[in-house]
C-alpha cells in the first residue's frame, strides 16, 4: 500500500436515508483522494429516516484543503451535517 497517511480524521456525517447515500459520499471522498480507513452506520431514529455515518479517514491534505472536502461532502443533497476532528498521528 503506497497511500500516504499523514493526517487522520474522524468524521461524522448525519444523512437522510436514501438510495446510494454512502456511494455518493465515497465518490466525493475519492475525488479528493481521501482514503477511508473504516466506517460504520448508526440509525438515529426509529423510522430510520436519519443516520450518522462515522468515518475514519486519512489524507495527505492540509487542514484547509480537508475542510474544503468536508464542505463538499456537506453540499451533497442527502447530507445534513458534517463534523470532523483531526486525530493525533498514529491514531
Amino acid at each position, binding site marked *: 500500500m503506497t497511500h500516504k497517511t499523514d493526517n487522520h480524521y474522524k468524521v461524522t456525517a448525519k444523512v437522510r436515508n436514501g438510495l*446510494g447515500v454512502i456511494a455518493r459520499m465515497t465518490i466525493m471522498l475519492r475525488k479528493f483522494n481521501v482514503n477511508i480507513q473504516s466506517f460504520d452506520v448508526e440509525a438515529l431514529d426509529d423510522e430510520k429516516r436519519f443516520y450518522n455515518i462515522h468515518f475514519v479517514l486519512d489524507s495527505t491534505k492540509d487542514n484547509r484543503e480537508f475542510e474544503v472536502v468536508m464542505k463538499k461532502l456537506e453540499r451533497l443533497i442527502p447530507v445534513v451535517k458534517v463534523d470532523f476532528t483531526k486525530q493525533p498521528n498514529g491514531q
Partner: protein
Amino acid sequence: MSEEKKLGSEIFCEALAAEGVEVIFGIPGGVVLPLYDQINKFGHKMKHILPRNEQGGGFAADGYARVTGRTGVAIGTSGPGATNLLTAITNSMMDSIPVVYITGQVTEELMGTDAFQETDILGMTMPVVKHSYFVSHAKDIVQTVKEAFYIANSGRPGPVHIDFAKDAWVTKAHYLPATAIDLPGYNPLPDECPEEEILKLEDLLHESERPMVIAGHGVELANAREQLVEFAEKHNIPIANTLLGLSTFPQDHELWAGMIGMHGDAVTNCIAHNADLIISIGSRFDDRITGNLEAFQKDTKFVHIDIDVSEFHKNFPVDLALPGDAKEILMRANTLLKGNEYPSWWKQIDEWKSQYGFLDFTVNPINDESFLSQPRIVDMISKASDGEAIVAADVGRNQMWTGRFYRFKKPNSHLSSGGLGSMGYGLPAAMGAKFGQPDREVWAIVGDGGFQMNIQELGTIAESKLDLNIAIMEDSHLGMVRQWQNLLFKGNISHSVLKNPDFVKVAEAYGIKGWRAKTYEEAEQAIAEARAHKGPTLISFHVDPDEHVFPMVPPNTPLGDQSLKAEDLL
C-alpha cells in the same frame, strides 16, 4: 380521491407540465416507449424535439437553460441512450446549468441481470450530478419530479438525474399534487452574510491601489448585471470577465477590462498579474483563469463572493469570503460602501492598452493572407448582428476568439462549454438556445472538428426549420491541438489533421442553405445573406490553420509571463 388511477407515464407528463416545462429534448427507445406512448398526447403543452443523438439533446437542453434561466429537460432510454447523455450531464455540472436529465431503466426485476440495454446509469452519473433519483413506481413520480426541478434550479444550479425503471411508466397511481419539499440539510442559499463582513470590503478597497473584479458565471446566474455596473462605477474599478462571465457587463463600458485567462486579453492578464486586490464574484478560480497559482496569489489580497460556500478557500485561502447570491451581496455592498477612485491604476491600465492593444484582433496579424482570419470573421459577425445575437461557441480556437471578439450587449447571450471544454457543444447548444429564445438571432460559431462531433443535429435543425446560422471555421485541423503541437510539442503535428467533407453540400443535403467564403467580400456577403434568410444557414469560412490564439499562458505559467506571439514560445 375521485379520479381514476393513471399510468405513471401520464403522471410524469403531467408533472412536467406542472413545472412549466415547454420544451423537451429526447429520443425514444426500448424502456421509455411507454412514456413516449403518452408524451405525444401532451404536445399541446410541451414541444418534444427529437435530437439525432442523446448527447446533442443534452447539450440542447443545456443551451436552452442558459438562455432562458429555466430548467432544461433531456430524455434518453436505458443503456446507450443513457450513456450518450453522460457528457452533456457532466457539462451541465461543470458549468452549473439547471437541467433535469431523464433516463429509462430496465424493469426492477431485471436489474442486476445484465439485461439488454441495462446499465448502472445512476452509479455512472453520481460524480457528475447535483443530485439523482431512482423511481420504480408511479406513485413516486410527482414528488420526485418536484424535488428534481427545485434542486436543479435553486442555489447554485446544476443537473439532476432521474432514472426511471420501466415499472414506473406502467404502474398506476392517483395523481396527487406534490407535498411541500422537505430536504433537511439542503440549504440553497447560505446564511445571510453579516454586515460587518461586507464592511471589511470597504477597508480592503480603501487600502488597495490596484483593485480589480473578476466577474464570472455566478453574476449571470444571479441576474446581477445592473448591480455589478453600479458597483464598478461607484468604485471606478476595472471589471474583467471569465469566459462564462462574458455578457455579464456591458462591453462598451469604459470600466470593462476584457477577458482574463489562458487566452484572455493581454491587458486583462496584466491587470490581474499586477492587482493588489482581486474581487472574484461568482467565479471559482479555475486553473485557466489563474495560471500559476503561486504567482497569481503573490502580493495580492482576495475577496471571494459566491453562493456556494464550499468554493471558498478551495484552491487557495482568500482574505475575505462573502457568502451569498451575487446580486444580493452587490446590492448590500452598493448601499453600505463608500466609493473609491484609482487614477494612477487607470493610468497604468491605459498604458498597457496602448502597449498591447485592447480588444483589437489585428494585434496578431494572420500568417497567410490566402486564408481568412478567424477573429476578423467573429468581428464581422459581431458587427453585422450589432452584438445582439446569442452566440454558442464550440471548443478550441473558435471558442477563445468568440469570447474575445464578439461584443456581447445582452446578458445570457454567450454559450460555451467552459468547465468541461466539450467539443461538439456549439451546434446543439445553439439549437437549444433557438428553441428557448425563438425571437433572437442565434449563431453557432464552431470549428470543423467540433462541428463533426455533433453534425447529426443538422437533421434536427433542418426538420424544425430553425432560423439559426452556423459559422464553421474550416481549416481541416483540430486547430487548438495544432496550436499546442506547434508551440509546445516542437511542431509535431500528431493526428490533428482532418479530411473534411464538403460542408456546403452536406448542408444542402439536409435542405439547409449554405455558403463557402474564401475572401472577406464573400464572407461579408454570406453573413448578410444568412442573416436575411429565414431558416437554417451554414457558412464555411476558409480559415488559417496556423493562426494561433494569443496571448497564450501555457499551463502553470504566471499570467504575467503570457506569450504574445509564437516566437515567445519557440
